[in-house]
């Protein structure tokens, strides 16, 4: 597989900051998204020199952002969480946790597609953009990932 060199962090940050902020603002609201934004890119920076290639960087940063969003939602006082759109945040946590664990052995693209679709409820168009491919390719990757998972779990 072609090796894509890891770019300077500056370039990566400038390319993805608006998408990440939008993603966080939709999940947490604008003001909570600001702290989460900073935390997301600090986490990315901490992991940056362990990256071995630059494929799927958008999926990578959105996965980090999604984790930060979950941590942020957890830390909120209970009444705050209840006020959030009918406990959507609470429902999403187990889904992601289970999927991340199950999906660990999938090929990178399928794992990203499955986790972003079923863990974070991202539309296929966004997943396609995150993976640097199309909406159709993202749908195909997610469904092939799910098929593989079913087989693995003996569900077919």
């Amino acid at each position, binding site marked *: 597989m072609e090796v894509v060199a890891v770019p*300077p962090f500056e370039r990566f940050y400038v390319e993805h900051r608006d998408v990440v902020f939008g993603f966080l603002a939709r999940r947490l609201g604008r003001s909570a998204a600001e702290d989460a934004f900073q935390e997301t*890119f600090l986490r990315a920076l901490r992991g940056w*020199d362990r990256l071995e290639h630059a494929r799927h960087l958008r999926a990578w940063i959105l996965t980090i952002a999604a984790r930060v969003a979950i941590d942020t939602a957890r830390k909120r006082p209970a009444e705050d969480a209840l006020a959030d759109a009918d406990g959507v945040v609470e429902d999403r946590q187990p889904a992601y946790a289970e999927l991340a664990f199950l999906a660990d052995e999938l090929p990178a693209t399928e794992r990203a597609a499955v986790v972003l679709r079923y863990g974070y409820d991202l539309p296929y168009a966004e997943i396609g953009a995150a993976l640097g491919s199309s909406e159709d390719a993202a749908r195909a990757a997610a469904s092939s990932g799910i098929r593989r998972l079913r087989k693995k779990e003996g569900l077919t």
Partner: protein
Amino acid sequence: MNVSPELDARFRAAAADAGLLDVAYDLVDTPLGRLLVAATDAGVCRISYDPEPEREIETLAKLLGTRVLRTAKPIDPARRQLDEYFEQRRHEFDVDLDLRLSADFSRRVLEELARVPYGETTTYGDLAVRAARPRAARAVGTVMNRNPIPIILPCHRVVGANGSLVGYGGGLERKEALLRLEGALL
């Protein structure tokens, strides 16, 4: 959804404060044009004239690590001292330098260069003597041309044996302007 300039600046500052960067850089406006100034934890590692930041940061990332980010604070001491220098309120720079990319002979020459005082000139041959390679005047010229930190490392103070300006990485007119600023040229 766009990140506000405030949030953007806050993240960049936090990244530097957390000590997570290999290289911090910023653009600094001076009477000689815009400079790109870059620093590592060890000190200023690069000043470039007429910078193309896109290309510059690729090079810095390759040489010093990919955690390169534009952020003002680590560059502030150098920026302040450059301002003072161009306002003729400062004759010596007091910032740490990171010369890890210059080895052996280059490094010795650059260290000798750092000792050439404000407002004075020396020659390529003289600098070669001081670096203990008296016949290497031409090689000293090459080191000057590739000086990673011009202005702070004053290669503009090195001239030909007959007093001609010879050359300058940032263009001869800048060499002349710096020497005039320092009163070394009438």
